[in-house]
């Protein structure tokens, strides 16, 4: 029996000790009418060998691609050591560290993670992580509203990832909180601060934005503070090796920093598991959701680590908890902690600058092709919005036929941009990869110019 060690002798001896005639008798408190017969939707069991064959076939079916999609999830090199250690049974199969004495490995690791995140963001404290970047943003919105005495409005620029905005809406909509969208300047792609915003609890400041564009974070932070609101930084951890830390934004720094932790050693893996990070100033620590680890001492005065500030949490506070969350993304944080240690300040800066330089180079080469233009005349980090004078969907499909995932079609989310794609380059791309992309783009666009697809065949823009 897969994963069940009992021999027939065990079963009869155990039933004897219980005083039951059969295993079925142990279910005698369940009303017979409720009992399930055979499961019809679950196929027969398979051996490990057979499942391995099945999964390998499916993996091969999906194959490998030359990818230039970013949009919040980035292809970075992941050192081999990381996941070998993450999947050691002592990390992989441990529970939430409630029994601190038996969990010092996990607890110390989280403390080190929290330390690294505060150093990266320039803020005082970090929690042990949340589900992902989008849910971390939603929690930051709730935190801003809890911290603000009067307003239940939070300003969210349209330059924030559309799906992040959608997740924030799902999370807060039943709590009488209003999310107000801010427009961007069509020339620069940067957020425009409204002349009269009314009272609000927080302003979300993405850096870089969904467009890859660098926002004027100092001015935005100061503006939020002048209005009596919290400044919520939404940042990419890789870029923080070289971009100003949120704790240093404006006159007094952002109050909360959140973002997607995936770039720090998590594989893209069709969407997860990743983790959301959250750091804040000391003053807001009791408003922070999620697990937090603290350093303390044991009975002998020896240093040790334990979960702390649990009075915020659901298992103590129940309906008055800061959030219902009771997990962190432990294993992925285990990966991220090692990633930050292996890369260090030098390595992370190199990853960031190589990604930036690659994107600049690709954007220049692509924008030199007739029919391709940059959407915004602003500095960008490692993603860029390109406008096409052709169907983005069709061009991306043609690139796909050459093994290239050429970017993300964002025309549906931002119809005002026309046919537009968001393109990302990371340090994993070689000069040959970029050249291949440029050549194929050139060939596809010129071919389509010379022999345009029949009108009835063109895909209407979404």
């Amino acid at each position, binding site marked *: 029996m897969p994963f069940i060690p009992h021999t027939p002798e065990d079963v009869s001896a155990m039933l004897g000790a*219980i005083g039951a005639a059969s*295993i079925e008798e142990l279910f005698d408190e369940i009303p017979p009418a409720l009992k399930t017969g055979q499961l019809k939707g679950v196929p027969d069991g398979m051996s490990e060998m057979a499942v391995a064959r099945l999964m390998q076939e499916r993996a091969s079916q999906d194959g490998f691609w030359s990818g230039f999609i970013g949009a919040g999830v980035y292809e970075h090199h992941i050192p081999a*050591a990381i996941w070998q250690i993450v999947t050691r049974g*002592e990390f992989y199969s441990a529970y939430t560290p409630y029994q601190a004495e038996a969990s010092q490995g*996990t607890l110390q690791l989280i403390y080190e993670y929290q330390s*690294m995140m505060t150093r990266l963001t320039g803020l005082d404290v970090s929690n042990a992580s949340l589900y992902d970047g989008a849910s971390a943003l939603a929690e930051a919105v709730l935190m801003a509203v809890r911290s603000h005495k009067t307003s239940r409005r939070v300003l969210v620029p349209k330059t924030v990832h559309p799906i992040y905005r959608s997740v924030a809406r799902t999370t807060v909509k039943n709590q009488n909180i209003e999310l107000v969208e801010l427009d961007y300047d069509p020339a620069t792609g940067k957020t425009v601060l409204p002349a009269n915003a009314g009272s609000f609890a927080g302003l979300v400041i993405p850096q870089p934005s969904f467009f890859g564009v660098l926002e004027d974070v100092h001015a935005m932070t100061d503006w939020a503070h002048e209005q009596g609101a919290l400044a919520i930084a939404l940042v990419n951890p890789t870029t923080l090796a070289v971009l100003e830390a949120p704790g240093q934004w404006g006159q007094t720094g952002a109050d909360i920093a959140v973002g997607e932790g995936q770039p720090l050693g998590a594989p893209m893996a069709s969407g997860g598991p990743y983790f959301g990070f959250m750091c804040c100033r000391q003053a807001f620590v009791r408003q922070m959701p999620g697990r937090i680890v603290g350093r303390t001492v044991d009975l002998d005065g020896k240093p040790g680590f334990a979960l702390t500030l649990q009075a915020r949490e659901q298992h103590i506070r129940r309906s008055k908890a800061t959030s219902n969350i009771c*997990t*962190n993304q432990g294993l992925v944080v285990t990966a991220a902690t090692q990633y930050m240690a292996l890369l260090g300040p030098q390595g992370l800066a190199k990853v960031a600058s190589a990604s930036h*330089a690659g994107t600049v180079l690709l954007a220049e080469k692509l924008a030199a092709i007739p029919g391709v233009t940059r959407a915004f005349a602003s500095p960008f980090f490692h993603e860029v919005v390109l406008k096409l004078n052709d169907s983005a969907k069709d061009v991306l499909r043609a690139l796909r036929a050459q093994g290239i995932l050429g970017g993300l079609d964002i025309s549906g989310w931002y119809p005002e941009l026309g046919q537009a794609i968001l393109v990302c380059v990371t340090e994993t791309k070689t000069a040959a990869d970029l050249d291949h992309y440029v050549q194929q783009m050139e060939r596809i666009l010129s071919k389509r110019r010379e022999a345009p697809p029949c009108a009835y065949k063109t895909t209407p823009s979404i």
Partner: protein
Amino acid sequence: MLIFDHSRPGRTAAAQFPAAGGSLDDLPAELRRKGAPALPEVSELDVVRHYTRLSQKNFSIDTQFYPLGSCTMKYNPRACNSLAMLPQFLARHPASPDETGQGFLATMFELQEMLKDVTGMAGVSMAPMAGAHGEFAGVAMIRAYHDAHGDTARREIIVPDAAHGTNPATATMCGYTVKEIPTDASGSVDLAALRAAVGPHTAGLMLTNPSTLGVFEKTIADIQKIVHDAGGLLYYDGANLNAILGKVRPGDMGFDVIHVNLHKTFSTPHGGGGPGAGPVGVAGRLLPFMPIPLVLNENGFYRLANEADLPQSIGRMSANMGNAGVLMRAYIYARMLGGEGMHRVAEYATLNANYLMARLREAGFDLAFPERRASHEFIVTLKKLKDATGVSAMDFAKRLLDYGYHAPTTYFPMLVPECLLIEPTETESRETIDGFVEAMIAIKREAETSPDLVKGAPYSLPVRRLDDVRAARELDLACKPAA
């Protein structure tokens, strides 16, 4: 020693660096960082050795028996990990077109279908990333359903007093007030109290069955009728699904919405606190409100459903599709078990729990509900021992660590004094359980003869008992760089 203590200026793990960096001169100076972040500067061996040593300071299923009640700490098959980490699966970007992920999407679709069958629900969405996240989705759907019917006076969620803390916390996040109802002497929902609690304000009842007291709610049919007759919906917290997997389906018990903790019942790793996965299943009337995305099968082509497919959806819960890699592991586990294997999970989990309960009873331990069957878990109360010796459930739990066993869940559920909630799971052998019983007997004897020994435990772990009060009062949440 922290990783920072290994750091030396200029030391690197250079093999991990890209060959060349690039210029940042085109970026405005005021947006660039003035000084490098004080991350550790260490070698690759430093990192490998440091974190390998840290791992050795953990208890885990792979190294110890872990009878943690309500957590289902069963063996996590290794193949689930290695096959979910095939390189093509890891390399796939979540925003890749569906055409490039038919292998992945087929896997997700089939898992969705299997979960529908084992839960007896009409639809499943795998968007939620943990049990509590699934609870949020479920209660948000209950609210969306009532709102869609103009039934906006329903603003109360009823929760038994033995429920997990996530239940009331979730209800609050969905804008509901919480009404707690008591448990009767046999550990069941107090039907009279439930009847008195329901009414035109009732949005729904959240219930775990078997309950957190380790017993099956025998009157589930009555509970179901009372709530539905009052116009409320019934939420199933899947925390204890391992006890009835393949034996009883929540859908057949009349539940309208359910979440499944894949990190419990489907053996995906707990990972020191996550990542989990909390798919939600719904009855027919809640289908339009399911969170997106979910996977559709259109004549053999698999694609992710979006806002246009489900305009009444409660919306998105993650930037992508939940914890996809966790879902992969659950799928692989489910395929290895098959339909028969699912039945066996509940059967042997229940056999092990009842055997362990019988042995502990025989050894003189008090059961919280001695007249009931154990489900996959049961409660021992040490109240008498505490009164006689001063040794608490916490002391007892800490002493178990010295004996090489992870402690059971302590002080939950809160209504049983000095309780140990014990769940052995189906993957443990009779010998392991017998060894645990011997340790329990030995500690009981220690408590009776030398209580201070037990009160001072543990002695053999990397640290002794930690000062939680100091941790909360003198907050040290991050190691600051030397100025």
